[in-house]
């Protein structure tokens, strides 16, 4: 231990490499770190393709940032020019249509990958100790993703952009005392306006890079504990692990290529299928669309918002529905992680996934009797799942004894 290293974590300054590589590495131990974390890093042998979606989501993020940079070179963040500048990108900029459609559709695919990734965490108990922080950083990213997506959807300045922004920002006025000040600060005006699109553009960039920052924390915490796996058991020895490279790199690449075939199919042949046709009408403060609906990935939360008859209550329920995810690691009382060995919790999780789709469907429907009723049942189950079932099932259920990774693989081969 030396004077500038009270905890001793810099003690091994002598690099394993020689030459230029060694010179750099002994001063900036990045090469060593990359080798340890991405080449030799041991991962459980038993990972299935659900584990590819984190990497896929990261590639979506990279694609969004790259395409976003090029869009930003041509986009004009003002109420007067935004709509036409997007159309100018589509029509007059070299491959502008490709960059714009890519940005638009990758946002949707980022959510698809992230939702599958979160489902994987729920199903196989990846949120449980010692991976609570991995999960919490993930949830923070999810929250920022929703913010970024919402801000970004305002920028093309179509009818849904404008009215979606009006409806969602108005939610803040439900907050007692400070609500109106928050709303005014957010909009920079009394309605969604020129000032709004300008600041939303800045915040859209800011949050996008904040997500990148959180990815770093997500990955650091993940690499401290190592990956979970379908059994939810930690590897017992080296034989139960594989090095990240080449085993995981090739497996994830294969999954990623398959995923991006799907992306390409939608991007090139149905680029507007996940959008709303009203957004090709320029924003007009005097004409309200017949149905104001958010983007598809917000629909479950929109359904929860509308399920509560009170405005403040609705807002609290909507934010609460995400807040409960943050404390899930402590709400779930079970000793066993994976749903493979938890017969009752498994049903609860699958119902949760089904309920997610039901709420998504309800969010797209008008707020009339039957749809509101179903939304309420769905909302009730959402909170029941986290606040009651997670602690209770953990106590009452008798899980089966999880098998070791080696036995799991042997059983699967048999």
């Amino acid at each position, binding site marked *: 231990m030396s004077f500038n290293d009270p905890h001793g974590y810099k003690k091994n300054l002598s690099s394993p490499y020689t030459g230029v590589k060694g010179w750099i590495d002994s001063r900036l131990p990045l090469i060593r770190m990359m080798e340890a974390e991405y080449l030799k890093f041991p991962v459980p042998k038993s990972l299935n393709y659900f584990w590819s979606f984190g990497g896929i989501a990261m590639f979506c993020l990279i694609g969004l940032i790259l395409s976003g940079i090029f869009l930003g070179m041509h986009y004009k963040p003002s109420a007067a020019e935004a709509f036409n500048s997007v159309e100018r990108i589509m029509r007059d900029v070299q491959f502008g*249509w490709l960059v714009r459609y890519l940005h638009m559709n990758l946002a949707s695919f980022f959510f698809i990958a992230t939702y599958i990734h979160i489902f994987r965490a729920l199903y196989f108990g990846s949120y449980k100790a010692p991976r609570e922080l991995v999960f919490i950083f993930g949830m923070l990213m999810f929250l920022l993703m929703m913010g970024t997506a919402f801000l970004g959807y305002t920028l093309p300045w179509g009818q849904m952009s404008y009215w979606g922004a009006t409806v969602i920002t108005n939610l803040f006025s439900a907050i007692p005392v400070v609500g109106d000040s928050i709303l005014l600060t957010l909009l920079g005006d009394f309605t969604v306006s020129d000032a709004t699109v300008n600041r939303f553009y800045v915040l859209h960039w800011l949050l996008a890079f904040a997500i990148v920052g959180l990815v770093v924390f997500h990955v650091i915490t993940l690499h401290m504990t190592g990956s979970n796996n379908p059994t939810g058991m930690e590897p017992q020895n080296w034989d139960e692990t594989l090095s990240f490279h080449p085993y995981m790199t090739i497996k994830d690449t294969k999954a990623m290529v398959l995923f991006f*075939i799907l992306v*390409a199919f939608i991007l*090139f042949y149905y680029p507007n299928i996940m959008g709303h*046709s009203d957004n*090709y009408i320029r924003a007009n403060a005097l004409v309200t669309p017949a*149905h104001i*609906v958010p983007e598809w990935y917000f629909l479950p939360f929109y359904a929860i918002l509308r399920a509560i008859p009170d405005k403040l209550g609705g807002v609290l329920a909507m934010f609460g529905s995400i807040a409960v995810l943050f404390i899930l690691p402590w709400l779930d009382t079970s000793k066993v992680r994976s749903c493979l060995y938890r017969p009752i919790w498994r049903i609860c999780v699958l119902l949760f996934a089904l309920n997610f789709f039901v709420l998504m469907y309800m969010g*797209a429907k008008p707020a009339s009797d039957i749809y509101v009723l179903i939304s309420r049942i769905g909302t009730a189950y959402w909170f029941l799942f986290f606040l009651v079932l997670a602690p209770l099932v953990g106590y009452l259920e008798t899980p089966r004894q999880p098998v070791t990774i080696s036995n799991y693989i042997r059983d699967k081969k048999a």
Partner: protein
Amino acid sequence: MIKKILLAILFINFYTFTFASEAKIEIPKYDWSWKGFFGTYDRSAAQRGFKVYKEVCSGCHSMNLLSYRNLEDLGFSEDQIKVIAASSLIEDGPNAEGEMYERDALPSDRFVDPYPNANAARASNNGAYPSDLSLIVKARPKGADYIKALLMGYVEPPQGVTVPEGMYYNAYMEGHQIAMPAPLIDGSIDYDEGTEPTLDQLATDVTTFMAWAAEPYLEDRKRLGVKVILFLLVLFVLTYISKERIWRDVK
């Protein structure tokens, strides 16, 4: 199972789904030359459609996201485009003396608006604003099918339905009332020999033109799509084989 659900979700467009279940108006499906993996715009239909737009629609409807030079895509020659552009006057200036002046439009100009401003447009149309048509095909849930159906949807109102003064009955308009009088009838445009200007033909042609106007890069998009997907498929086969090889010895 999960995979199936996810795929099903992907291919549902929640929004059109919503509209389809509420509005009971069935929009017919037509054949369009630009559908499918290798679809392209029918150039002669689009050229005729431009004629329809110029002689009928452009009296009230602007198309200000298009420039005259874009018409080259449809097969018009540079000289033809110069003549087309020059048939409209555009305000320019100020000149060196500080005066605004009118001049013939150039191929680089956007399509000249029929009205000087939105209020003038409303004043001439009973208070209704004729939409800009540049993106109209993308701005309606059923796109081209809806536009063609609407253009052909002027029928006698059913018994008992009264249409207020200044409005017209249309079978495909939401609420069945539309402020635009029937723009096209059989033979309302003179076509060159060989094409019969029936209502159906006129509607098909002008819709083709508007579909092109909304997405002039559609053909590039589809052509590139085939290449990208083929590339990814080959890449997938390679990664599949590599994965099998690398994992062969994993017990």
